[in-house]
């Protein structure tokens, strides 16, 4: 006997309303393909181009707590902001990001990253310098590669000193698409 879709959905909505979830996730559509998004009571926990849900659920349970549930209702505010961003109607995100568990260096780098405005870029070395460690360009590259919340924390705005795009964990074609959306690339 399978559980009817509307009954399943009603439970997931009620669970989101109950405030008892440590993390809620959903898979949402975007111009860059499906995105896994996850939020908790302290903000956005994860955005990923990799929609292997099972792996993300395990990770969310480790980081945020075991009450992890797919709950589209709780993901709605983030979905809305992403839709506005992709529609060109939003240049900055209002939702906060939950950085629990990252190292102090990573946190400094990500806070500086968040300050790079829509439509602008910085180099890895510049970002390292802003985070207080000018020699750490390579470590900044690693931090971008492991960014838990791409798009919202705009690692796509970080490029090489010679203007090359260098790389993107979600695939270079997505970095091109995001910089094109923001008018950096034609």
């Amino acid at each position, binding site marked *: *006997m*399978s*559980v009817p879709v509307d*009954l*399943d959905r*009603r*439970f997931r909505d*009620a*669970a989101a309303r*109950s405030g*008892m*979830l*440590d993390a809620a996730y959903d898979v949402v559509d975007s111009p860059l393909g499906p995105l896994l998004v996850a939020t908790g009571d302290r903000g956005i926990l994860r955005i990923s181009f990799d929609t292997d849900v099972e792996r993300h*659920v*395990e990770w*969310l*349970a480790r980081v945020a*707590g*075991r*009450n*992890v*549930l*797919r709950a589209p209702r709780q993901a709605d505010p983030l979905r809305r902001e992403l839709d506005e961003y992709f529609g060109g109607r939003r240049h900055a995100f209002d939702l906060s990001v939950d950085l629990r568990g990252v190292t102090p260096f990573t946190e400094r780098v990500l806070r500086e990253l968040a300050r790079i405005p829509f439509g602008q870029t910085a180099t890895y070395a510049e970002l390292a310098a802003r985070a207080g460690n000018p020699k750490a360009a390579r470590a900044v590259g690693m931090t971008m590669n492991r960014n838990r919340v791409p798009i919202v924390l705009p690692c796509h705005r970080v490029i090489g000193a010679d203007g090359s795009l260098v790389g993107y964990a979600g695939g270079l074609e997505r970095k091109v698409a995001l910089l094109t959306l923001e008018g950096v690339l034609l």
Partner: protein
Amino acid sequence: MMDAVAIPPFETFYAEHRSEVLGLLRRRLGRDRAEDAFQETFLRALRAYERLEHGEHLRAWVLTIASRVAIDVQRREKPTGELPDLPHEDARPAYEDLGELTNGLPPKERAAVVLRYGYDLTYHQIAAVLDSSPDAARQAASTGVRRLRKETSA
């Protein structure tokens, strides 16, 4: 020493047990009343989930919660003498027969019989559902079975 069985994320637990829980509730309450009870069951489970200390017996645990919810629903309602609608789509006819067959039993006996013979729970686990002792659970199941024998042979 063996490691305690890891507790899965709630999503995994829910996906694994939701069908069986809904089946139990439909047999006990009928299709309509089972829907609210389904939600109540998993909200209770969610509330208790972060306090669980190991991942053993999760199936028995959630069936226990569902049975308690079903008993609460039955207690809240005045007896009408009518039998609930039962689903006819169950993939496991033995369970369905048991659900139909036990309709006329008092709630505790019915719960004991269905949980013992339909779901293979131990008397210890059934006792937890019924807020009573394993001996009382065994007693309720055997009284229920005796009553059924009498009814079906009458």
